């Protein structure tokens, strides 16, 4: 849930990266981290010290700087894939102000995408069990794989995105499209947080 | 006048003490002793009454009683120099008494250790053989102990630590804070009377305070 501290003029929001297993959720976080200047990344917790093992990146705080006198930050969480992490998933989503849905572009993964989207809807209830209206942006990953493996954006939209949420295609390896999608979801959630203000309010 | 005052405030230990001193001056030791005991009933920590009882006992050449009373006084007022001086005097005239030297800070085998609140040893030692590694380890733990005692007195609203005693099966250890940022530990065998341990530690603390002052 977005947090506003009027005294310190601080604003913090949470974006959750959701999607089926192996759709590239942590890759997306790595990609964002690598492209943001280090001083904006926020001091994030040290990861496990096993040398040679790539740390599992699941939380990335971003400092957006001062906006209209507000110090704004966004916490990015990648939802865990593990079956046993159901409670964790629900809790992370309970605080989500926006969702970046990573859908795997491979035709063979369409069923996984649909299942993940259904579980997102199930988990997006508020603390009292009512469904919450949270801005969602789609990110179709692995767009750089050979075309014969992919489903194509139109077919993907038909199955996953009949509501016409914003869509971005990305090649996770090269990272194209990821920042644009993040930009879009942050703009949407901020607009959502402060429903277009009355003039001068 | 003291009698009149006592009539008004019979429970005030100081009034009994004053009456006792008048009786002692008049040479009426029995009445003085009774008045001092009355003072101690009002205030068991009354150092003046302890000193008075020691004085009349000393005058009567009862050195054992004099020493015991002064040790009890030292227990309640470890920093009172007059008590220390009186104890020295009693012990020096006591037949067969072995006057115990105040342990010296410069002697690493004195069982006296001075350390700062960072746990660094400033002077002294604790082992019989002046083992420096041991002394450094004790200094490090001692600082933790002094801080813990200060935390307890602060959170329970008891004011500043005066002294801390630990007894084990084989030892008695006194800790006294010195200045604001140091403390000393005095380590003795279990046979030492507590009053004497505190008297020694009190005098050592005084010496340590002066020593620290000179160092600064």
């Amino acid at each position: 849930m977005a947090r506003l501290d009027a005294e310190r003029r601080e604003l913090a929001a949470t974006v959750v990266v959701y999607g089926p297993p192996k759709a590239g959720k942590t890759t997306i976080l790595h990609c964002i981290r690598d492209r943001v200047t280090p001083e904006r990344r926020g001091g994030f917790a040290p990861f496990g010290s096993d040398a040679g093992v790539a740390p599992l990146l699941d939380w990335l705080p971003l400092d957006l700087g001062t906006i209209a006198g507000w110090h704004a930050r966004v916490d990015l969480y990648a939802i865990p894939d593990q079956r046993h992490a159901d409670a964790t998933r629900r809790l992370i989503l309970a605080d989500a102000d926006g969702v970046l849905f990573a859908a795997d572009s491979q035709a063979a993964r369409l069923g996984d995408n649909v299942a993940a989207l259904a579980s997102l809807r199930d988990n997006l209830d508020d603390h009292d069990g009512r469904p919450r209206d949270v801005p969602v942006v789609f990110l179709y990953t692995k767009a750089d794989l050979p075309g014969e493996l992919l489903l194509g954006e139109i077919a993907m939209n038909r199955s996953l995105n009949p509501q016409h949420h914003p869509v971005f295609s990305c090649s996770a390896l090269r990272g194209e499209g990821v920042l644009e999608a993040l930009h879009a979801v942050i703009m949407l959630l901020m607009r959502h947080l402060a429903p277009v203000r009355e003039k001068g309010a | 006048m003291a009698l009149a005052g006592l009539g008004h405030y019979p429970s005030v230990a100081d009034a009994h003490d004053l009456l006792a001193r008048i009786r002692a001056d008049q040479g009426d030791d029995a009445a003085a002793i009774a008045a001092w005991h009355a003072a101690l009933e009002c205030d068991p920590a009354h150092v003046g009454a302890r000193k008075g009882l020691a004085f009349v006992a000393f005058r009567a050449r009862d050195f054992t009683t004099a020493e015991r009373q002064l040790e009890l006084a030292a227990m309640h007022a470890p920093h009172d120099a007059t008590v220390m001086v009186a104890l020295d005097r009693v012990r020096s005239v006591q037949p067969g008494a072995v006057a115990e030297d105040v342990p010296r800070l410069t002697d690493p085998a004195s069982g006296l250790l001075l350390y700062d609140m960072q746990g660094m040893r400033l002077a002294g030692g604790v082992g019989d053989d002046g083992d420096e590694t041991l002394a450094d380890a004790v200094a490090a733990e001692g600082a933790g102990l002094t801080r813990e005692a200060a935390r307890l007195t602060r959170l329970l609203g008891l004011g500043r630590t005066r002294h801390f005693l630990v007894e084990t099966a084989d030892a008695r250890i006194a800790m006294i804070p010195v200045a604001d940022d140091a403390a000393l530990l005095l380590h003795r065998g279990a046979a030492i009377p507590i009053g004497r341990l505190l008297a020694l530690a009190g005098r050592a603390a005084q010496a340590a305070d002066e020593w620290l002052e000179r160092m600064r």
Partner: protein
Amino acid sequence: MRVLEPWVAAPLTELLGESGARLALIMTSAGQVVAQHGFTRSLDVMSAAALGAGILATTGELANVVGAPSGFGAVVHQGGQQGVWLAGFDTPRGRWIGLVVFGPESSIGLVRLFFARFAEQVARAAPPLVPVREVLAEGFERELDQSLRALFGAG
């Protein structure tokens, strides 16, 4: 130590220093992490927050069932080498939960004592919440867009 609400930092530092605790996690009763110390992986933080919030909710239910009207003050588990302290406390931001893991150098008593002080300090330090609509100025969106462009190198 990592804190999302900066005014929690000083009380948490005191709690950790005075109690000698190894790990600490402060969260909302919904499980949102407010501050943490000592966890090395953020996934562990999320799991601990989820489990902690769940345990406290379950214990509250248990208290109702066995007829302890005000609930249990805290849930404590004392293991051989480590103990866990889990307790809710009220703040102007709603009910929060603290989870503290401590070793033999500390004790339940010390954690209880300094946790109570921590909860008092947090309740005092919390700045008031202000509804969003009142405070976001016009131009916020334009500036946000510019800031994101600069941040993501999109010019």
